């Protein structure tokens, strides 16, 4: 653990250096422009100070994003429409619902594929085809169609989330449910075990490592789905709405803080699944 601290810090430091340098480079044009109109010459230190503190920079400096994050999370009441915590929760709730739906759908399809020959032959190509359709194209359709039948709010976003997250679960669980070897299946046969017993006592426990791995991928995909689902809804609330509003009004600092919030959210959720995975597999004697 301690050994990995130094390399990680080095990488983080390098990212900050590049980020600050890039902020100077990208925002310099605007700074020179303004200085020229005011009829003043900029020294290098004045240039740097200006590029790191513009209102609508092309690339905001890290500390500007940090300040914005602090203002919109700690300093705002979470009930406020300007609170990032509020917007994060809107997105997270859709993500979690979509993730749950996607996991259930994925496991269900995987069971069908493993146990039913017809499904094995027919479903997988459709599952793969579903992922080749750009989500940006299909998301507005889902919103519009569901809206037409009177469903709006959380569920349409969750369904877009589900659309992205069921895929890794299907693929992982098909592999997991098929992971018991010929010998273990023969053994079940010698005990005259029913298909049900083979599933609950052998196939399902064997698939656990695969399930957790695919759930991590599915969680990240769910978040992307929820954010994409917020873009065509007229941007009322959620991280997607913040991104959209930010780009309308050139609020780059707001965009970057929403981006970082989304990344942090994904990291926390994936880490949470990872923790459950470690505890569960350890208790099952299956930890790698």
């Amino acid at each position, binding site marked *: 653990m301690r050994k990995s601290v130094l390399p990680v810090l080095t990488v983080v430091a390098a990212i900050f250096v590049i980020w600050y340098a890039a902020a100077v480079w990208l925002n310099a044009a605007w700074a020179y422009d303004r200085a020229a109109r005011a009829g003043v010459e900029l020294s290098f230190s004045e240039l740097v100070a200006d590029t790191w503190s513009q209102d609508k920079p092309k690339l905001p400096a890290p500390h500007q994003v940090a300040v914005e994050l602090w203002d919109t999370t700690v300093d705002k009441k979470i009930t406020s429409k300007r609170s990032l915590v509020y917007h994060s929760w809107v997105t997270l709730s859709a993500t979690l619902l979509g993730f749950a739906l996607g996991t259930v759908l994925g496991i269900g399809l995987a069971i069908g594929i493993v146990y039913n020959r017809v499904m094995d032959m027919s479903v997988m190509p459709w599952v793969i085809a579903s992922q080749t359709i750009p989500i940006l194209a299909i998301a507005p359709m889902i919103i519009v169609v569901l809206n037409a039948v009177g469903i709006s709010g959380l569920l349409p976003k969750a369904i877009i989330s589900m659309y992205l997250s069921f895929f890794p679960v299907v693929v992982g669980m098909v592999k997991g449910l098929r992971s018991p070897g010929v010998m273990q299946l*023969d*053994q079940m*046969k*010698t*005990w*005259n075990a029913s298909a049900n*017993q083979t599933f609950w006592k052998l196939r399902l426990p064997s698939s656990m490592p695969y399930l957790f791995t695919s759930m991590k991928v599915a969680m990240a995909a769910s978040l992307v789905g929820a954010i994409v689902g917020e873009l065509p809804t007229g941007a009322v609330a959620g991280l997607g709405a913040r991104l959209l509003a930010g780009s309308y009004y050139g609020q780059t600092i707001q965009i970057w803080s929403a981006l970082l919030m989304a990344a942090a959210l994904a990291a926390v959720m994936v880490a949470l699944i990872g923790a459950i995975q470690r505890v569960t597999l350890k208790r099952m*004697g299956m930890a790698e």
Partner: protein
Amino acid sequence: MSLDRGDTGVTTETVISAKGLNLTFQTNDGPVHALRDVDLDIQKGDFVSFIGPSGCGKTTFLRCMADLETPTGGAITVNGVSPEEARRSRAYGYVFQAAGLYPWRTIGRNVSLPLEIMGYPKSDIAERVERVLELVDLAGFEKKFPWQLSGGMQQRASIARALAFDADILLMDEPFGALDEIVRDHLNEQLLQLWDRTNKTIAFVTHSIPEAVYLSTRIVVMSPRPGRITDVIESTLPRERPLDIRDTPEFLEIAHRVREGLRAGHAYDD
């Protein structure tokens, strides 16, 4: 003395009977005769070993008895009924080459797995698990997980699992093949004691001549392409067999016959 059941007037009961058994696998390279015209009767209480080089059909024959393979010709009965019926009535316990214990279950819960599947009552399961673990010398390891046990102990647990339900027949497919010689000797000795105490009928597939001679009342020598029986040797060794019986002239004589049988099978092939 009741070493030779035929002489003492105890009626012999045929447990497994194969007549003109054939099994041909269709492969891309044409048909493969895994078994051709195999005839064999196994009596109750017999310890029969099957020995031969790879591809001689010894494991396939065992799998036919267990209904894991379906013969393409001839007839085979287990306990007087078809292998499928015998399997459905849980007439045999099958021990595979690998222990195949579930890592997420303790040794006790691994042994109880077939009992749960077969719907034994809970109180009965606990009692049986304790008894069979005792039988294979694993008392006190009930709460341990498979990875906490050595390879030999894991294989003993898998034998306990096959003994947990009251099958009269034990089918063993090279159960000690992956273990080192010292552990193997020990397990052979224990298996003989277990057979003596429980009076089960055992069919045992092996690669090892000393193992076959040491364990068996009958040794079936098989040879490949097509898989067939080339010799059946009745052992003259007493039922009581200490490990050093393997140095007696009688033992070496039988081992010699087995070796001759294996060589004859190969000569036929060349």
